[in-house]
């Protein structure tokens, strides 16, 4: 088997598309003006940012001035929560399978006297709308439930959940970092008040995210200072990254359908082939309401990091299904929430497929996984 470099961790981050880098280059070179400067060099940067904002707004169906740039999806999540809470009620509702940018922000708030309800998800990884309805209280200030999960890719019924929250006059935020560019995201149809995005998950640059804030929704600022982002988020704009984000959004919009088909085909092919090749493997989460590129599989008799490293040795990049934090070994809160037994969680690998993945890549990965799991099973004292 000839060694081959296969990146299959698109949920962790994506390479820049060539067009995205091309669009950024002038802003890394001659167009370095500060967008706050009123001479032409500055106005040019400002104008470019405006166009980028418009491109992103088109992708999510919002108005362009409802988009606020942040430095990451994590910052957008933090801003949405801190911004919406200050001065309001003391109760927040979320799900058990949120990203740490949500969960750790909420645990911090718990230490400050806030009360958080963590909704269960079923085996498929879905929140039950009835549970949300029951969880909302008079003092609930915010519901924050992610659109698509980063580990198992399951997609929540956001539209339905938003309706329930709005019926009780509660703000709704959704982390759509994994959803954007991979499934249609239309903020108006969904009805969300706030939504988080991150460019580096859609073939845009790292270090730039966005928070959609619906017109009329007032939240507190997160970074105070200059008047950037309509006075809501200070700091000299990351111009090249913003331009890259805009270009990535434009491309994502133009090719969404093909992208979904491409990922879905290869993902399903991978699932079928893996199932056939590796006897002791189990897919986690529903295969229905799921991001097209995501496959989360547990292998018996082989530990995740060991699989990952052996695959890495063979040129393949995938990630484990385990949770955040490099010094603890708390097993993935997501897999725990959908009822995967702990022993199985440790043997979990997330494959995530993206626009540069090919059928040959999948074939190579299947062969490699077969070889690696066989080797590790032989090494294992488990039977």
């Amino acid at each position, binding site marked *: 088997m000839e060694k081959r470099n296969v990146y299959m961790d698109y*949920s*962790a*981050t994506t390479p820049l598309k060539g067009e995205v880098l091309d669009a950024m280059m002038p802003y890394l070179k001659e167009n370095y003006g500060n967008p706050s400067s009123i001479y032409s060099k500055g106005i040019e940067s400002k104008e470019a940012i405006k166009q980028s904002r418009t491109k992103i707004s088109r992708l999510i169906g919002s108005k362009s001035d409802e988009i606020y740039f942040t430095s990451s999806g994590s910052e957008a999540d933090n801003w949405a929560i801190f911004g919406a809470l200050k001065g309001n009620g003391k109760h927040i509702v979320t799900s058990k399978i949120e*990203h*740490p940018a949500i969960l750790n922000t909420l645990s911090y708030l718990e230490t400050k006297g806030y009360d958080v309800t963590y909704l269960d998800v079923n085996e498929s990884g879905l929140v039950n709308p009835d549970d949300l309805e029951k969880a909302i209280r008079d003092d609930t200030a915010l519901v924050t439930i992610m659109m698509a999960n*980063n*580990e198992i890719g399951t997609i929540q019924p956001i539209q339905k959940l938003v309706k329930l929250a709005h019926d009780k006059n509660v703000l709704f935020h959704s982390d759509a970092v994994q959803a954007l560019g991979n499934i249609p995201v239309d903020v108006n149809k969904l009805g969300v008040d706030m939504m988080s995005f991150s460019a580096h998950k859609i073939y845009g640059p790292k270090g730039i995210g966005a928070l959609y804030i619906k017109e009329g929704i007032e939240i507190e600022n997160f970074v105070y200072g200059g008047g950037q982002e309509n006075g809501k988020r200070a700091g000299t704009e990351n111009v090249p990254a913003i331009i890259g984000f805009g270009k990535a959004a434009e491309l994502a919009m133009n090719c969404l359908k093909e992208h979904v088909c491409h990922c879905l085909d290869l993902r399903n092919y991978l699932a079928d082939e893996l199932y056939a090749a590796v006897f002791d493997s189990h897919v986690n989460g529903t295969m229905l309401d799921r991001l097209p590129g995501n496959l989360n599989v547990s292998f018996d*008799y*082989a*530990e*995740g*990091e*060991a699989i*990952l*490293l*052996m695959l*890495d*040795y063979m040129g393949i990049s995938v*990630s*484990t299904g*385990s*949770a*955040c*934090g*490099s*010094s*603890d*070994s*708390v*097993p*993935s809160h997501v897999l725990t929430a959908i009822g995967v037994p*702990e*022993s199985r*969680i*440790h043997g979990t690998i997330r494959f995530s497929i993206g626009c540069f993945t090919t059928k040959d890549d999948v074939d190579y990965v299947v062969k490699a996984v077969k070889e690696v799991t066989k080797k*590790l099973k*032989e*090494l*294992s*004292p*488990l039977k």
Partner: protein
Amino acid sequence: MNMYNDIVMDHFMNPRNVGEMKEPDGIGIYGSPTCGDLMQIHIKIEDDVITDAKFKAYGCGSAIASSSMATTLIIGLKVEEALKLTNGEIVDKLEGLPEAKIHCSVLADMAIKKAIFDYAESNDKHYDALKGFDPYEMQEEEHVCICGKDEES
């Protein structure tokens, strides 16, 4: 570039002394699949010298590598000497593990002690270094789930 250095990677990719014995003199098992790591060691002892060791491990790279390294270290040692082997020494021989992974080397260390304990029990041997060592108790107490994972993203 790897999260582990070349020595660790070598012991992980090409682990030494893998396997089981038909008739081991001592068996040590340490860890738990729920924790994500489990090590099993079989040893042969002749005249108070460890003449052979075989291991099997389920766990992360550092668990496997340190188990492999540990077996190479104890083969040929007197039992009393083998009992003195610490996880620190295993880590040193591996020329270091990432901070969060240091604890993984405990697995090997403990499994060896348990194997010697097993041998001592069935052969009515007494070793000073085993005094106070109670494998049945410590599993619960001391073994925490130890092999770190990567960041979520």
